[in-house]
């Protein structure tokens, strides 16, 4: 610890010094006339200091995490408390005032809501509701039990005279018991997140800590009012009222949360045109639910928890991907920031001699009682629960549950709220609460990790999403609910089934965008994720090989690699360029044209590469130009890209699977190679027939190209359509051909090549399907949806092709162009399969 405090001194000096400086400077500044620069510390004092504290806390976090050793052993919350103690001590030593304490207002209105909202919004719903019965039992019965036994036992000891003279009655003790009984969500989250126990155990402890808030609030306010009334005047009616108010507070809080969740989901349904403030709604409306229930004196924690739990599904579906990310990060940032501040301020608050009143017996007995009664309570309740639970809670789990009963800032804030006039021993309660909090967070937090390891508690495991698992899981849901239907039971599955039916038929329709309703199937999501991963690993594979050679030949054959991860360099090398090179050297002897050809090959490769990159690379978002606008972000290219990648990889998975399955991989490859070779030969043989290329052709070429790029700007679109649709039809043929192994696709290629002079009927003619009937679905749909990401490369190619074509004016330079064209063609089959496949299977 001590070596970390070094840098903090500097920050601290900054915190303390301005204060002293400000006081001295103010009067001297006022006496003079106009001042160019004034030092107005008091204007900014409060927010400034708050910000500095937050900065200190955040910097401290950075420092903690510099050393993994420290954070692995000591939980962050404990470190923060200790830091708070140190800082508080320093401030106190310097200033002799307790600079800052955690006030209940700040805590309840600003620090607690983000943490609880975060918990609710990211709550694993299925797990939560699956264990709801257990959680409720622990939260309600357990908390009442803890409060009552702790309070009563302390009172009993007090009566025995062990604590000396205290000005408290039974009700004071019960009040204290009620606020010290509740397990604290902030502390539990902070510690358990680092421990990684299995999810069932986690959800039970954490759910308990969230839901016991209602009990705590009710018990606290009931006893507080009883204390105010005075012990004698409490009647039976008041007790009944107290019980009724428990139901009102808890159910009312929940209801408020659900209503606001409904509202929030509904609002996000219509935020399509105000994407930029979309994330704001999530925070504003959930916070409103918190404030509303606070206003109605209902359980605010329950309200915001349930708001988060209920809205998550619909909100996540409605808002755009970026907004979802924003919400996620903002929420995490707020929550973890709030947590940091809470723990640090807990430490700082403790440095105030005024609040400390020591009573050894009281403090120690409180510690003893809360541990002992929690243990007893957990064991009793688990014994009852295990008779009904499917997943039994093992003794080891129970140990963790007892040990995980951490107290935290909620208890502290509640105890600070007490009125000194009514509760005479407030200071004792405050100091005891602080001791309890520190003990549980620091000591238990420190030891729970070794304990969990020592007991070999089932840890949670991060699993990759599996499609099969999801599918079987879905099947199970249906089977189980069917069995319950058939056997006439109303069980868990029955209820879940009814709920999901209701959700699908009513709620989703009302609360979700129409577009979102579609894609919100979890199975689809997993599928989507897997596909994205495939695409990424595919590109990564290429990168790993240090070149784009892997990507360069995006023929379907290669795609098998994606899944079965067997890189086969031989097939890679059998790519277009390879074939071209070989054939070229065999036929052509002219150095000039050889050079020319090499260029063209490089061109082709470039193009293919470019195209592949377009196709597969997941572009970093920064690439998009941001034209500044407060209200709009640049249109959602990324989303489109996502979809595109998704579709493509899906096709590929599918295709590779089919080929693997049908065992036609080899045939297909062979057929393709054969075909390519044939086409190649034809092309090559056609070249020597014509005139030989002119000299200095390569030279001219580059210049002319630019010229004509401009010229054909208007004409280009025409060609794009023609070219691409042609290519696709051709491709559709190829795929069909290879399946049936008929030579039909090849017949047309000779003729157009020999008379390439008509510019309009260049490659499209080559690609024209001889049997249009064979590929009816291809062209119309395809040409209309061309401007997808992949189309870039293709349109570029088309333009290039075109520029070559329009090149054939006076000078007789047909041949080179032709060759250029010829060399451009081969990528066709290699490049386009994904599209053709897309044609075969309608997209999602």
């Amino acid at each position, binding site marked *: 610890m001590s070596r970390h405090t070094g840098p903090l001194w500097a920050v601290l000096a900054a915190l303390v010094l301005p204060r002293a400086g400000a006081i001295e400077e103010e009067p001297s500044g006022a006496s003079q006339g106009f001042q160019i620069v004034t030092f107005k510390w008091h204007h900014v004092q409060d927010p400034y200091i708050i910000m500095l504290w937050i900065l200190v806390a955040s910097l401290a976090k950075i420092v903690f995490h510099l050393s993994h050793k420290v954070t692995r052993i000591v939980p962050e919350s404990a470190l923060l408390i200790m830091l708070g103690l140190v800082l508080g001590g320093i401030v106190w030593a310097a200033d002799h005032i307790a600079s800052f304490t955690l006030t209940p207002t700040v805590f309840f209105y600003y620090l607690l809501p983000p943490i609880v909202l975060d918990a609710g919004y990211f709550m694993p719903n299925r797990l939560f509701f699956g264990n709801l019965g257990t959680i409720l039992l622990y939260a309600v019965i357990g908390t009442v039990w803890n409060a009552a036994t702790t309070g009563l036992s302390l009172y009993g000891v007090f009566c025995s005279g062990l604590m000396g003279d205290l000005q408290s009655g039974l009700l004071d003790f019960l009040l204290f018991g009620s606020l010290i009984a509740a397990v604290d969500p902030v502390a539990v989250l902070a510690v358990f997140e680092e421990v990684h126990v299995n999810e069932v155990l986690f959800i039970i402890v954490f759910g308990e800590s969230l839901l016991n808030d209602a009990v705590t609030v009710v018990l606290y306010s009931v006893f507080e009012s009883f204390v105010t009334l005075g012990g004698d005047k409490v009647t039976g009616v008041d007790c009944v009222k107290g019980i009724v108010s428990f139901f009102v507070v808890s159910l009312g809080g929940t209801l408020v949360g659900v209503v606001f969740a409904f509202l929030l989901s509904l609002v996000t349904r219509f935020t399509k045109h105000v994407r930029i403030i979309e994330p704001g709604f999530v925070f504003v409306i959930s916070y409103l639910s918190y404030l509303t229930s606070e206003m109605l004196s209902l359980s605010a924690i329950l309200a915001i928890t349930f708001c988060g739990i209920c809205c998550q599904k619909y909100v996540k579906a409605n808002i755009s991907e970026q907004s979802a990310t924003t919400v996620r990060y903002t929420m995490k940032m707020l929550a973890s920031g709030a947590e940091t501040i809470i723990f640090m301020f807990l430490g700082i608050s403790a440095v105030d001699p005024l609040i400390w009143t020591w009573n050894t017996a009281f403090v120690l007995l409180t510690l003893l009682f809360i541990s002992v009664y929690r243990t007893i309570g957990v064991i009793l309740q688990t014994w009852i629960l295990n008779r009904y639970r499917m997943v039994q809670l093992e003794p080891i789990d129970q140990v963790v549950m007892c040990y995980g009963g951490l107290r935290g800032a909620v208890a502290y804030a509640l105890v600070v709220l007490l009125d000194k006039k009514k509760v005479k021993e407030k200071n004792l309660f405050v100091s005891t609460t602080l001791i309890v909090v520190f003990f549980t967070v620091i000591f238990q937090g420190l030891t729970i990790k070794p304990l969990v390891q020592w007991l070999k508690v089932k840890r949670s495991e991060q699993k990759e999403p599996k499609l099969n698992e999801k599918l079987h899981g879905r099947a199970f849901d249906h089977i189980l609910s069917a069995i319950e239907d058939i056997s006439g039971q109303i*069980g868990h599955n029955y209820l879940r089934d009814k709920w999901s039916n209701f959700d699908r038929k009513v709620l989703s329709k009302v609360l979700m965008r129409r577009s979102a309703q579609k894609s919100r199937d979890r199975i689809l999501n997993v599928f989507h994720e897997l596909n994205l991963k495939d695409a990424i690993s595919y590109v990564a594979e290429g990168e790993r090989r240090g070149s784009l050679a892997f990507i360069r030949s995006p023929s379907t054959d290669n795609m098998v690699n994606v899944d079965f991860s067997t890189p086969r360099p031989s097939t890679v090398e059998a790519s277009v360029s390879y074939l071209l090179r070989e054939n070229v050297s065999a036929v052509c002897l002219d150095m000039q044209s050889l050079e020319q050809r090499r260029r063209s090959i490089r061109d082709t490769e470039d193009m293919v590469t470019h195209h592949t990159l377009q196709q597969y690379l997941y572009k970093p978002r920064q690439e998009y130009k941001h034209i500044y606008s407060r209200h709009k972000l640049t249109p959602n290219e990324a989303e489109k890209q996502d979809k595109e990648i998704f579709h493509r990889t899906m096709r590929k998975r599918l295709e590779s699977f089919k080929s693997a399955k049908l065992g036609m991989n080899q045939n297909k490859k062979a057929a393709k190679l054969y075909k390519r070779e044939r086409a190649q030969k034809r092309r090559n043989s056609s070249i020597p027939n014509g005139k030989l290329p002119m000299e200095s052709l390569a030279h001219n070429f580059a210049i002319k190209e630019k010229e004509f790029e401009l010229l054909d700007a208007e004409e280009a679109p025409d060609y794009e359509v023609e070219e691409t649709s042609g290519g696709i039809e051709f491709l559709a043929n190829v795929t069909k051909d290879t399946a049936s192994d008929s030579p039909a696709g090849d017949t047309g290629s000779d003729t157009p090549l020999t008379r390439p002079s008509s510019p309009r009927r260049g490659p499209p003619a080559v690609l024209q399907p001889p049997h249009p009937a064979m590929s009816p679905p291809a062209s119309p749909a395809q040409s209309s949806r061309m401007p997808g990401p992949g189309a870039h490369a293709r349109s570029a190619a088309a333009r290039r092709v075109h520029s070559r074509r329009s090149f054939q004016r006076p000078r007789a330079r047909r041949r080179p162009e032709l060759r250029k064209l010829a060399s451009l063609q081969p990528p066709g089959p290699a490049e386009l399969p994904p599209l053709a496949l897309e044609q075969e299977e309608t997209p999602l």
Partner: protein
Amino acid sequence: MGAAHSASEEVRELEGKTGFSSDQIEQLHRRFKQLSGDQPTIRKENFNNVPDLELNPIRSKIVRAFFDNRNLRKGPSGLADEINFEDFLTIMSYFRPIDTTLGEEEVELSRREKLRFLFHMYDSDSDGRITLEEYRNVVEELLSGNPHIEKESARSIADGAMMEAASVCVGQMEPDQVYEGITFEDFLKIWQGIDIETKMHVRFLNMETIALCH
């Protein structure tokens, strides 16, 4: 209850066979008679009377499983026309929670039994293999509840799942290797590490009440 009551011997026998308690057997018997309309056997049509079942997307597969000879332990294939109460209980017993007090072997055994039931549901032609067609069929039905998912996407999901299964079970495949379908051994492999005990069970109560906890 009459039949079961008059022959408590029979009930005891059923208890031994299926592992249900006598209360549960009685309860299920009541339900059985309700379904069958006081007949000794149930036919497929009887299941049409269960109103909640109608919304179930894989209804037909589930009902079929009730008549599957493999599940009834009556033969390697084929469907029974009707089932009696004992058969009914046999099917139901697949969904009994696994008794964790038993030894590891027995737990493993009942786990296998449960998985076999599921496997039989997928493997509709009883050839011991879930072929792509069969898998597609199941997935299509599974997803038919969602009107927004087209048949085609359901199919490609099935294909994807099949590929995943292939890569789990066979590992690296040769390019010309053919994966014909998921065998039961493969099926077990896929399920490895997944906690089936907590998934495939129904809490059979003695009374018809809402279970408080699961």
